[in-house]
């Protein structure tokens, strides 16, 4: 293994002191001169045609500047999903739709001198609707006699299956081998249906955007975005403002988890600012974030497998029905990932078939959310595997160790399916899942607790496990770039398109550059994600930043390194071949051991002869997407009398290749784990009969806090990914895939009930316990 000096070290997060001291700025913290405020008004109905909008009461209010809605503002069709262009998501929405498709759909926006006035005026607008039939049940969405949510105009900009006439927003089908034949070869068939629910990201910072103007009259948008470059493109596309007249700046971001991969506010503030040539601010309330921003897609997953007495799976069939809600943001790709990130896990299954449909309903819109479909798929997959193990008398850990994909192996699935279209074949070149399983099992005391049903009063203990994989960027799609320039003192400015949303990518990218140049992180001054100043990057999603943007930075630093050597060579006359980069900011001449400090090289290049600046740029796109792996273990106490499940301990052991920064990597696992536990047990959207969310605040949408967290143990099983920067793969999404199935499996271990529907609330658990006792 390589000896690193910066990589693999717990370097302090470069932005953390400013965050701790409150000097860092989030989007809503910028003061712009004399701003106007934008407030939205929303559909109270799940499905309706707007027949008239009377905005005169609002316009008559003092301080109201303008009102925007479908009656006065048109835009083309687009998707709010911030993805590669053209997007795999359908173009099925406009800034202001004439048909509203869920309670919470944006109807219009009021621009006023104060936030208070804008919000008061938004309430004063009278909208007339003709009600249309709602559609809440995704299972019925493809039937012939249900309302059709989208019309003739909507289209998919990529050649993918899109059939709005059947309410189908996305379809994924593939198979290999012969599943039916496989089933006939089996000794047992196991078939069950699992349901996952929609949930909110709950990034602590609500979405905000501010549009202002620079001295040349160009539009400068500060936005809480994960995708500044996509945001710029989408703003231009929806508003007609020329792209070169727009600059998007990403300040510090208060968490995203996918919710800010969605371009929601930017077009509206841009539109209003451009029209009135005034600065415009918009900041959503938490309630608006719940109802109008995106959710994790709810998914029904049916899994059927045939297997032999020894556990060999002869065929596996998965059928997913995903509820994308009113619009198809990320519909196709989340659906794809429910298969492509799940099914390669057992790559020795000879016969496999997957059918997936993403359907429209008149409910809140699904979108990108940490785990991105894999979370949903693994909830079913891991319980299914647990059921197989119990049927054939195998131990889950040993069983998975026997069948999981290994280094040097591939899976048909990689080729069969990518992001909605065909995938990219790849061979797994790093996989320490077996080690993850062993270390995790030891930490959770698997052998001591499994199947023991230790009892204390009405409380029974159980342990459960799950495994998962994710990807590192989207192969052949994601691209990141970086540039660097050298300063007089031997420090470097690093400009990266990559978007740090709290994940620590500014730190990791600085570490990668510092490692390559043998200097400390302090000598790297990073500036990221400003569409004017930094090169392009697709954004913070798809677990891409460390792998994709990291490679871009590494390549860039390599070029800088070459220039350092060639400049040192012309300075000293020593042949380049004798020169190498040493530690601590110097070039070393191996012939005589002499050292040339970076600062001298910098000054030579800039001030002495044939003056030039040492600078470079590089891009990287991934030709493959090496999966990180993780084993997840839960120890739970189930109260037989109340149905309450308490997670006592949770262990997540992951292989993310070489962790660039172990503290940040562990932090990603811990955060994802807690989010996953909360997702499994308490978080849920509650709707009334008309499809309106009734719990759109933290008052009744409960997420885990300091009192709730169990003992969480995150473990890194290091590997080295040959295609990654310094051997790194991704880490930030995968941790969320395990808690729900591991907890479900632990509940089964404790009390013998299978919870196939999320969230596993005490009431559901108790009902299942009673149903079993009654049987």
């Amino acid at each position, binding site marked *: 293994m390589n000896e690193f000096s910066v990589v693999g070290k717990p370097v302090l997060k470069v932005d953390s002191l400013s965050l701790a001291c409150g000097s860092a700025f989030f989007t809503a913290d910028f003061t712009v001169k004399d701003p106007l405020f934008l407030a939205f008004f929303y559909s109270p109905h799940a499905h309706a045609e707007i027949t008239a909008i009377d905005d005169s009461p609002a316009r008559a209010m003092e301080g109201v500047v303008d009102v925007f809605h479908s009656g006065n503002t048109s835009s083309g069709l687009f998707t709010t999903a911030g993805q590669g262009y053209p997007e795999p998501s359908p173009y099925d929405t406009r800034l202001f739709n004439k048909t509203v498709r869920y309670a919470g759909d944006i109807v219009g926006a009021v621009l006023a001198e104060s936030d208070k006035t804008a919000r008061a005026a938004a309430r004063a607008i009278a909208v007339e609707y003709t009600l249309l039939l709602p559609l809440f049940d995704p299972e019925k969405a493809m039937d012939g006699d249900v309302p059709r949510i989208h019309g003739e105009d909507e289209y998919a900009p990529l050649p993918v299956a899109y059939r709005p006439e059947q309410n189908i927003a996305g379809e994924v089908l593939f198979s290999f081998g012969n599943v039916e034949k496989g089933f006939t070869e089996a000794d047992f068939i196991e078939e069950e249906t699992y349901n996952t629910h929609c949930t909110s990201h709950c990034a602590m910072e609500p979405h905000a955007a501010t549009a202002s103007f620079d001295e040349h009259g160009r539009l400068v948008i500060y936005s809480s975005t994960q995708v500044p470059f996509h945001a710029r493109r989408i703003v231009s596309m929806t508003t007609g403002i020329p792209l070169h007249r727009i600059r998007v700046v990403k300040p510090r971001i208060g968490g995203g988890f996918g919710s800010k991969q969605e371009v929601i506010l930017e077009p509206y503030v841009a539109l209003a600012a451009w029209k009135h040539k005034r600065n415009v601010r918009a900041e959503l309330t938490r309630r608006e974030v719940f109802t109008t921003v995106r959710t994790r897609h709810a998914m029904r997953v049916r899994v059927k497998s045939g297997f032999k007495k020894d556990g060999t799976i002869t065929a596996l069939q998965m059928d997913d029905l995903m509820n994308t809600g009113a619009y198809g943001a990320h519909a196709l790709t989340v659906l794809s990932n429910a298969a492509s990130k799940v099914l390669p896990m057992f790559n020795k299954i000879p016969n496999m078939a997957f059918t997936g449909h993403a359907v429209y309903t008149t409910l809140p819109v699904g979108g990108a959310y940490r785990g991105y479909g894999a979370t949903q798929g693994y909830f079913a997959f891991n319980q299914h595997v647990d059921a197989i193990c119990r049927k054939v008398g195998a131990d889950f850990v040993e069983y998975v160790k026997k069948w999981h994909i290994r280094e040097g192996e591939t899976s048909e699935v990689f080729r069969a399916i990518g992001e909605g279209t065909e995938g990219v074949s790849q061979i797994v070149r790093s996989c320490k899942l077996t080690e993850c399983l062993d270390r995790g099992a030891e930490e959770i005391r698997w052998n001591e607790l499994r199947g023991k049903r230790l009892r204390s009063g009405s409380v029974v203990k159980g342990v459960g496990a799950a495994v998962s994989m994710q990807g590192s960027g989207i192969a052949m799609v994601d691209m990141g770039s970086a540039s660097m320039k050298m300063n007089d003192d031997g420090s470097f400015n690093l400009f990266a398109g990559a978007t740090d949303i709290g994940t620590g990518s500014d730190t990791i990218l600085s570490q990668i550059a510092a490692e390559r140049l043998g200097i400390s992180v302090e000598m790297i001054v990073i500036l990221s994600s400003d569409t004017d100043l930094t090169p392009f990057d697709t954004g913070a999603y798809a677990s891409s930043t460390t792998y994709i943007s990291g490679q871009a930075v590494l390549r860039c630093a390599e070029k800088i390194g070459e220039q350092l050597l060639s400049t040192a060579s012309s300075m000293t006359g020593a042949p380049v071949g004798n020169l190498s980069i040493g530690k601590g900011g110097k070039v070393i001449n191996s012939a005589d051991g002499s050292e040339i400090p970076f600062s001298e090289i910098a000054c030579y290049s800039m001030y002495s002869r044939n003056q030039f600046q040492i600078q470079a740029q590089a891009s990287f796109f991934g030709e493959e997407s090496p999966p990180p792996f993780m084993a997840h273990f839960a120890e739970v106490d189930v109260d037989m009398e109340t149905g309450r499940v308490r997670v006592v301990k949770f262990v997540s052991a992951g292989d993310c290749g070489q962790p660039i920064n172990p503290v940040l990597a562990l932090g990603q696992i811990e955060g994802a784990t807690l989010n996953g536990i909360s997702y499994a047990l*308490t978080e849920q959207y*509650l709707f009334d009969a008309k499809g309106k969310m*009734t719990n759109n605040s933290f008052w009744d949408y409960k997420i885990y806090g300091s009192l709730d967290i169990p003992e969480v143990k995150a473990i890194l099983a290091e590997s080295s990914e040959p295609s990654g920067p310094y051997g790194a793969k991704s880490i930030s999404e995968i941790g969320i895939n395990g808690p729900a199935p591991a907890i479900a499996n632990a509940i089964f271990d404790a009390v013998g009930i299978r919870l196939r529907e999320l969230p596993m609330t005490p009431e559901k658990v108790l009902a299942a316990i009673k149903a079993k006792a009654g049987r």
Partner: protein
Amino acid sequence: MNRIEWYFPETIDEAAALLARERTVPHGGGTGLVKSGLSSFSGVVDLAKLPLNYLKMEKGILEIGASQTFASVAENLSNLCPDCILVAALGSAASTPLRNRITIGGSVSFFPPWSDLIGPFSVLEGEICTEGKNSGTYDLSSWLANRPVQQGTLVTSVLLPDAADWDSCYYREVRVGFDYPAFTVSVVARKNGSKIEKVRAAVSGGLERVTRLSGIEDGLNGKDLSQLASLDVKKMARVTFGRKPAGSAEYLSEIAAVHVERCLKSVLLGGGELR
């Protein structure tokens, strides 16, 4: 916009006079008023400068001034009377920064369905002391039954005539640690050897704000501890609920009874309450 005037009286009389005005409300911690908004008021009387921020125990009578916050009650009592059920109840309500604001006066006036005060108040058979309009002393049921007495009335303190020397158990049904309770269970008891001298139990959060479980109390008062086993507590503790986000009416009713039984066992038999 409607003009709102803030007042900061320093005496009870001054405050009472201000509250006699139209559309004028007292302000305790503000956590209820921020939510409801001030738009229907023209005057707000802040109580912080009144001499109501005290907690004292005299001859077994606990008196808590209306301006005491949940946090200060829990803190003060944990020295004075650490086993008091109010320590557990008010010390676990809402969250730290909220407990630092929520006052006894505001909570008595508001007594929300999620109140952490009402159950303990019921089992300790507290009284509400008021000044100004309708000045006097009210027990819980007359206070709750008569909303209008609260209008324009200043709650000055609560009296808990017999607050000390109880064994107690408090349970709040929450989905996560920081949550308002879907229901609460309060049990206090005094034992003498194996004899139950007195036991009181209440469930809050059901259709009635708070329900005293008098059947259980009657069945146990003056009896031997062994009597507990012969009562069908789970049946006797059934309280009617409405549906809540935390669960269906049936579920809440069922598990509230489970927790009543556990609290009774914990208090009477010393078994730790299982979470």
